[in-house]
């Protein structure tokens, strides 16, 4: 049984039936010519032996008993989880078919029938399908779905069946001493998820808390906008970002504290803007590994979490494709083999929301005319080749482009505004894997990247900032990831590697820069035109050992990072340790502690607008947890964490030095913070028709920006985050799902009173601290329905996704009028239906 949401392990090999002694046909039934299908749930241990059989869909008591008795004597090759033999549960249908008794023939004529069994809609081979003809001759389809049946000449009726599929009958005429081809058998699924093949992927990097999602069943979570990477936001440890925002707010920390990676290489953003989808097409997605904290030494230069999205190879057997269209975008993907050793996969996406958006933007005389034109697109192309010596070679091209134009004119209360914004990045990633022996392997992945960011604004700010401004940034990036694994002994594996990133940022700016004056009234700005090159080098090395001592697994690690920008150098040493102890086969305890460092951003170390003397921020992450499997359908994971942060970068006031000069660094590493909480994940899979999980996070996150300040809540500190996701598939063609969220309102600093400042002409509020007041609780129910039509060569799906189906009014932000007397809230999204169509072959 494959779990849609795996807490720790991933199925990498299916069990294969190698010995199937036949059942005893109930004599009464045989005499009456009665047949039956008995569906059973079969437990197979790590040796391939059947340990338990339970009837799921009975035929009749005598058929059931005969089937159970026969299946108990079956033998399989063991299934594998993460490359290791493991126990699994499968669904197996035993078919009782009447064989025609024939008088022995005068001579043993033999004929052969060969054929192919594929899944309807996508032509994927159905490995292990059983082929039985009306003489009782049997055969099984191989991994390519091909079978060869030896039988008696003459017209034959072949019954083809496989667990999770409808049986199909094809006719073929066998000829004496001949080999004829039967028509291809197209099998339709009866239920989704049984023995669904997960493309065997690279074993993910181990961590005490790694929440892995595979895309097949999670693309249909409502509210995810058809994007499995958004489904990550339904896991514990992530705060709700406002509206459709894709910000990753992990364990009470801002988005810049969590690293986003694609195949181990850092990318500037994971989601397109304006609540858009992720920059990776879901068809190229292998899995998403979300590390909320406590991960090992392979990831660094992040204070809090990491998300690594892995792409997959193209299909190695046949050409497949997909196209989809909805109100927001059009997407296409194609994959397949090139020869026997090479596979490719390509995908592309382009938005057309700019056509529909004007229908939703209000335009009235008071507010002015607003036009917002967002356009985004992305592409991925992957080629994989297996060399003659078994090495793997891969090349991945991907890129993303977001462009936004906003123009606002007229209106009583709005200044004319125009904003042009563009963010694009492109990467070439190479991958080489070599296995020296069973104990030693090497992987090397270089990457080249080009990132462009430019913005031009007018009217976007008060006073001098309203003047035309523009910034253009171009970053050339060279990266290298390399890792060696050495299994020194059965209980010890070493992992060591490098994580290097070299950036060359060149930027030109024509901006209004706030002068470093002791101001009175509004900031005084001056036009600044500059052209600058800022190189940044980041070198990382790590070493990790995994010790397995019986039930205890210990993973100590050490990561070293060196940072260079202009004439500044910084270094960090990050020791990390995590442990896992299996109390039993069903219960495991885990604990971790580690030190994490993060460098300042390019803007924060700029000579003119930042402080190039800034140091590194740090965090100590600790946690303990338990994973309990109550049964094969119930599992619970609970974790308590505590993060302590220091050296956080805060804005500071100028101070007087002892020699009478002024020191105005703008930013300094004087902030501290902490976050702590409980994360709970309860998962239950009742049958393959029903799936779901409940995620609950109880947490607090606070910061102290400067020593003289008071503690205040993190901007998105949400003490209670409850997410319930449920999906139901009454038939394979239907997919119904729902998501319910209950989240604490965001904190804000209430205004105690306001004073009119005659020098600026504005009212200056005196506030409490962030967290002294909260918005009302957020409640939202989303639903989704999808229907799929399947023909032989292709499938068509139609979906309707309705967010906030009850049109509940949620309040996102607190706002005040100009003198802080009247107050109100910015409302969240109203009911938002979207629909789309997808075709696959």
């Amino acid at each position: 049984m494959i779990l849609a949401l795996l807490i720790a392990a991933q199925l990498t090999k299916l069990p294969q039936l190698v010995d199937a002694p036949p059942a005893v046909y109930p004599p009464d039934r045989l005499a009456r010519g009665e047949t039956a299908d008995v569906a059973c749930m079969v437990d197979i241990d790590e040796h391939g032996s059947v340990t338990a059989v339970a009837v799921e869909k009975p035929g009749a008591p005598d058929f059931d008993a005969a089937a159970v008795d026969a299946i108990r004597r079956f033998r399989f090759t063991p299934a594998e989880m993460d490359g290791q033999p493991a126990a699994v549960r499968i669904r197996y249908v035993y078919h009782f078919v009447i064989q025609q008794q024939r008088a022995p023939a005068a001579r043993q004529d033999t004929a052969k029938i060969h054929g192919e069994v594929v899944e309807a809609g996508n032509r994927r081979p159905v490995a292990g399908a059983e082929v039985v003809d009306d003489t009782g001759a049997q055969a099984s389809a191989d991994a390519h779905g091909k079978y060869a049946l030896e039988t008696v000449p003459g017209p034959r009726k072949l019954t083809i069946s496989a667990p999770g599929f409808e049986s199909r009958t094809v006719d073929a005429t066998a000829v004496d001493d001949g080999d004829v081809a039967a028509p291809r058998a197209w099998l339709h699924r009866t239920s989704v998820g049984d023995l669904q093949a997960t493309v065997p992927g690279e074993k993910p990097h181990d961590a005490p808390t790694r929440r892995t999602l595979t895309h097949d069943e999670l693309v249909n979570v409502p509210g995810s906008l058809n994007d499995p990477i958004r489904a990550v936001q339904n896991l514990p440890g992530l705060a709700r970002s406002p509206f459709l925002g894709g910000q990753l707010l992990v364990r009470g920390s801002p988005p810049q504290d969590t690293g986003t990676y694609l195949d181990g290489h850092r990318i500037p953003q994971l989601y397109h803007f304006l609540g858009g989808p992720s920059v990776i097409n879901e068809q190229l997605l292998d899995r998403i590994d979300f590390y909320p904290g406590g991960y090992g030494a392979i990831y660094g230069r992040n204070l809090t979490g990491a998300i690594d999205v892995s792409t997959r190879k193209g299909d190695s057997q046949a050409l497949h494709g997909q196209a989809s269209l909805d109100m927001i975008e059009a997407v296409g993907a194609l994959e397949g083999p090139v020869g026997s050793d090479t596979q490719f996969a390509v995908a592309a996406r382009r938005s057309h929301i700019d056509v529909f958006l004007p229908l939703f933007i209000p335009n009235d005389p008071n507010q002015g005319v607003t036009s917002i034109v967002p356009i985004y697109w992305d592409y991925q192309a992957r080629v994989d080749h297996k060399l003659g010596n078994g090495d793997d070679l891969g090349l991945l091209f991907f890129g993303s482009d977001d462009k936004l134009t906003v123009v606002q004119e007229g209106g009583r209360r709005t200044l004319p505004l125009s904003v042009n914004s563009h963010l694009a990045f492109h990467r070439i990633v190479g991958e080489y894997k070599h296995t020296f022996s069973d104990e030693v392997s090497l992987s090397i992945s270089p990457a080249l990247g080009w990132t462009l960011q430019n913005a031009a604004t007018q009217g976007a700010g008060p006073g001098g900032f309203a003047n035309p401004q523009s910034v253009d940034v171009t970053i050339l990036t060279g990266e290298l990831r390399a890792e060696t694994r050495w299994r020194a002994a059965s209980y010890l594996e070493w992992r060591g590697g490098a994580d290097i990133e070299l950036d060359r940022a060149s930027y030109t700016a024509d901006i209004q820069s706030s002068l470093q004056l002791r101001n009175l009234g509004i900031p005084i700005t001056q036009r600044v035109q500059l052209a600058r090159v800022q190189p940044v080098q980041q070198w990382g090395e790590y070493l990790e050992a995994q010790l397995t001592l019986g039930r205890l697994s210990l993973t100590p690690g050490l990561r070293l990072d060196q940072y260079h920008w202009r004439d500044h150098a910084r270094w960090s040493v990050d020791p990390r340790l995590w442990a896992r102890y299996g109390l039993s086969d069903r219960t495991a305890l885990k604990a971790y502690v580690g030190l994490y460092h993060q460098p300042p951003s390019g803007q924060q170390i700029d000579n003119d607008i930042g402080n190039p003397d800034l140091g590194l921020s740090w965090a100590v992450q600790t946690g303990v947890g338990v994973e309990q499997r109550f049964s094969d359908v119930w599992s619970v994971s609970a974790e308590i964490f505590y993060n302590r942060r220091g050296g956080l970068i805060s804005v500071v006031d100028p101070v007087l030095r002892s020699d009478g000069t002024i020191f105005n660094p703008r930013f300094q590493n004087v902030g501290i913070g902490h976050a702590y909480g409980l994360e709970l994940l309860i998962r239950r899979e009742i049958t393959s028709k029903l799936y779901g999980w409940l995620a609950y996070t109880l947490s607090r996150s606070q910061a102290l920006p400067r020593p003289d300040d008071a503690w205040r809540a993190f901007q998105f500190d949400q003490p209670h985050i409850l997410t319930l996701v449920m999906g139901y598939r009454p038939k394979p063609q239907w997919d119904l799902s729902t998501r319910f969220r209950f989240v604490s309102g965001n904190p804000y600093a209430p205004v105690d009173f306001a004073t009119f400042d005659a020098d600026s002409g504005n009212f200056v509020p005196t506030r409490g601290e962030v967290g002294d007041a909260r918005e009302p609780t957020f409640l939202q129910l989303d639903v989704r329905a999808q229907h799929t039509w399947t023909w032989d060569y292709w499938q068509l799906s139609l979906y309707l996704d309705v967010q906030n189906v009850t049109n509940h009014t949620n309040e996102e932000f607190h706002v005040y009028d100009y003198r802080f007397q009247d107050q109100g809230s910015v409302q969240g999204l109203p009911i938002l239906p979207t629909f789309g169509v997808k075709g696959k072959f």
Partner: protein
Amino acid sequence: MRVLALLLLLAACTPDFAAPSDVTDLRVLAVQAEPPEARFDPDAGVAEPVKVDVLAVDPSRDAGPQSIQLQICGPTDSRRCDEGPVIDAGTVPLSFTLPSVDATALLANDDLAGFGGIRVQLSFTVDDGSPKGPVHGDKVIIYSSALPPCPPDAGIAPSRNRNPALTGVLLTVAGQDAGAFAPDASLTVGTEYGLRPVLADGGEEDYCTVDLRGEVLQLREQAHYAFFTAPGGEFDSDTADEPLDGGAPPDGLTRFTPHADAGTIWIVVRDGRGGESWLERSWTASPDAGVSPTRRSSGRGGRARPGPR
């Protein structure tokens, strides 16, 4: 980028608050200190006297007594003085000379030891018995003993800040010149007038200062306007900057539309470093077309408030 775009969408989804330019109850629109930057002799401990004028208006009530109370202290985050005596500065007109200031004591309490001048915060409360309560405000007055130097190639000499002045307001209709907005002007109801305030010569001063890195700079002020109207009229922009090139669009820096038969507008100009002044104009309006906005002998005045010119 995403934050900006979402904020713009928010602008379309925010509650419908009143505009700052609509004056419907007691408001303090501006405070002028003359001079805005006063001399201070640290040896004698004597500061130059400063005269303060407060533009406080309340269209909701008949002209009634307005009282003002003051406190003087060093600058605070709340803009209100936490300590010091409360001085009753009298009633209408809100114009008074600042009591003597202990600038020496304030210098001692300044974190930056008087860098850029000693800052004195004048916190005040204006009350006219309005049911909505008094208005709290503050104005910072700078006392300087020495003038900052000028860069060697500057063509100006060091000087103290002066208040900008407005000499008048020009009107346009449909981009065409419509003369000056004189006191008690006659307008046409429903007509959109472009307004262009006229700054007196020298209103945007060139000046020298020292920044927080110790660099001597020569800068030029940029005037910033705020527009206000009593009920009966409407501005489409609450604020505007003086164009850098001194020109202005054909439809002015803001557009004003009278909807009633009479009213008053105020235009405040600030130089960004403590200097400010204002202009008040009453108007009448009729539905007739083609009425000149220049002065008429039989105009009805609004509630005129004496103010500095």
